[in-house]
């Protein structure tokens, strides 16, 4: 279900989940966002891949915390002295909290790059800048083509015995020869491409791109819920519901109804695609049984 979302609603969803937690300034919210992202990641990627990257998500906050406590010496709770520098608990906690924020943004970005595939980018760009969309689509085509072409070129040269053996210097020279030949081909080829584009009528008249996606009811639901919850969360951020102080002492904001509602709203939004996926899977299984 999630991969069939309309690009606009998907963009809104990911903007919300990536940017909003970072602005709350509250470690609990970071943790919440990170966990929700992790759940969605487990739902999208094979669990072994996710489990392998878990180490990074654990090591990163600790690293940032150590780094921060080495450079920052504010805070009232002194843990120990290192070369005469104060290492404080507050600086360490602040580092941990920023590490969690980094984690949450990283995990949502990873999901974004998984779901936001080339066709969706093309769609979004195509609506406001067709030329950029054209360039992007050409690049996405050229990259694999060039890699293949370079390999073919190299193999030919090797087979002919022109280069490939010899000292390191000779091999590097060979690589540059290949690159030069490749470059000549590349530029001539680009001219051929552009001529063929002109011949087929590019730029002859106003054209529109074929619309691949349609705005379905699920998109409407996602958009409305995301916008509502974003509005409420921004209100909470402005009124300081989440504000946490780290220096000189850690002061958590008092538990409030607003903060609670904002948390629940965030959970609802970030769980929506996963829930839709799971419901969809159950439905599919039922039809087959």
């Amino acid at each position, binding site marked *: 279900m999630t991969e069939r979302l309309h690009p606009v609603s998907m963009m809104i969803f990911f903007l919300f989940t990536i940017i909003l937690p970072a602005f709350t300034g509250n470690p609990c919210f970071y943790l919440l966002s990170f966990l929700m992202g992790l759940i969605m990641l487990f739902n999208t990627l094979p669990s072994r891949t996710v489990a392998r990257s878990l180490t990074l998500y654990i090591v990163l906050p600790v690293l940032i915390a150590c780094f921060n406590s080495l450079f920052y010496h504010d805070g009232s709770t002194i843990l120990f002295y290192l070369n005469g520098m104060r290492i404080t608990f507050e600086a360490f906690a602040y580092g941990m909290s*920023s590490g969690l924020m*980094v984690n949450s*943004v*990283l995990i949502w*970005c990873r999901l974004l*790059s998984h779901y936001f595939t080339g066709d969706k980018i093309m769609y979004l760009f195509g609506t*406001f*800048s067709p030329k950029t969309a054209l360039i992007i689509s*050409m690049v996405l085509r050229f990259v694999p083509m060039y890699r293949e072409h370079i390999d073919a070129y190299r193999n030919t040269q090797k087979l002919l015995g022109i280069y490939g053996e010899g000292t390191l210097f000779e091999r590097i020279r060979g690589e540059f020869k290949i690159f030069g030949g490749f470059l000549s081909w590349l*530029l001539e080829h680009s001219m051929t491409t552009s001529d063929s584009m002109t011949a087929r009528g590019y730029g002859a008249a106003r054209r529109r791109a074929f619309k691949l996606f349609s705005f379905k009811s699920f998109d409407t639901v996602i958009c409305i819920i995301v916008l509502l919850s974003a509005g409420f969360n921004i209100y909470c951020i402005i009124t300081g519901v989440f504000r946490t102080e780290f220096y000189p002492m850690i002061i958590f904001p008092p538990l409030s109804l607003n903060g609670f509602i904002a948390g629940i709203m965030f959970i609802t939004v970030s769980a929506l695609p996963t829930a839709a996926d799971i419901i969809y899977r159950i439905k599919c299984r039922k039809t087959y049984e």
Partner: protein
Amino acid sequence: MVLVLARLDKRKTNVRRIVLIAVMTALSIVSRFIFAAVPAFKPMAAIIILTGMYLGCEAGFMCGALTAFLSNFYFGQGPWTPFQMVAFGLVGVTAGLLASSLKKRRIVLVIYGIVAGIFYSFFMDIWTMLWAYSGLNLAGYIAAIATAVPYTVLYAASNVVFLLLLERPFGRRLGRIIHKYRI
């Protein structure tokens, strides 16, 4: 960014120019693949500088920004993408502005390569600082620059090496194409 894109769209650009921009962008992405094993030592910036030099400011910007944006689809998209896009875009634009002097003297090219490498590294350090401290913070910025020194050196060195190696074959071939097809 959006403004530049909008401007590009309004103007009637040559089809060949558009294709050349796409080709150069694809080339710099491929070059990132070839050197994927070596961290920070990449010919990307050199190719973007050459594009800016020979095809003009706009092409340099497009090539830089799109290289960062699209290559991150292969290497991992993240909050650093916009920063990379702006940094590479600015490197390309400046190369386009300095085109005539860059083409004339190789020493200027070398100096520009070094400056571009340092600029890119410092620009990305702004990102590191904003990221780690979630706000402006001078001490954090200096710490980020200090930890990134080996990368800065590598960026600058790779720029110089690749600019020197690629400038002549590139210049000759691109110049020939531009002359032959009147772009």
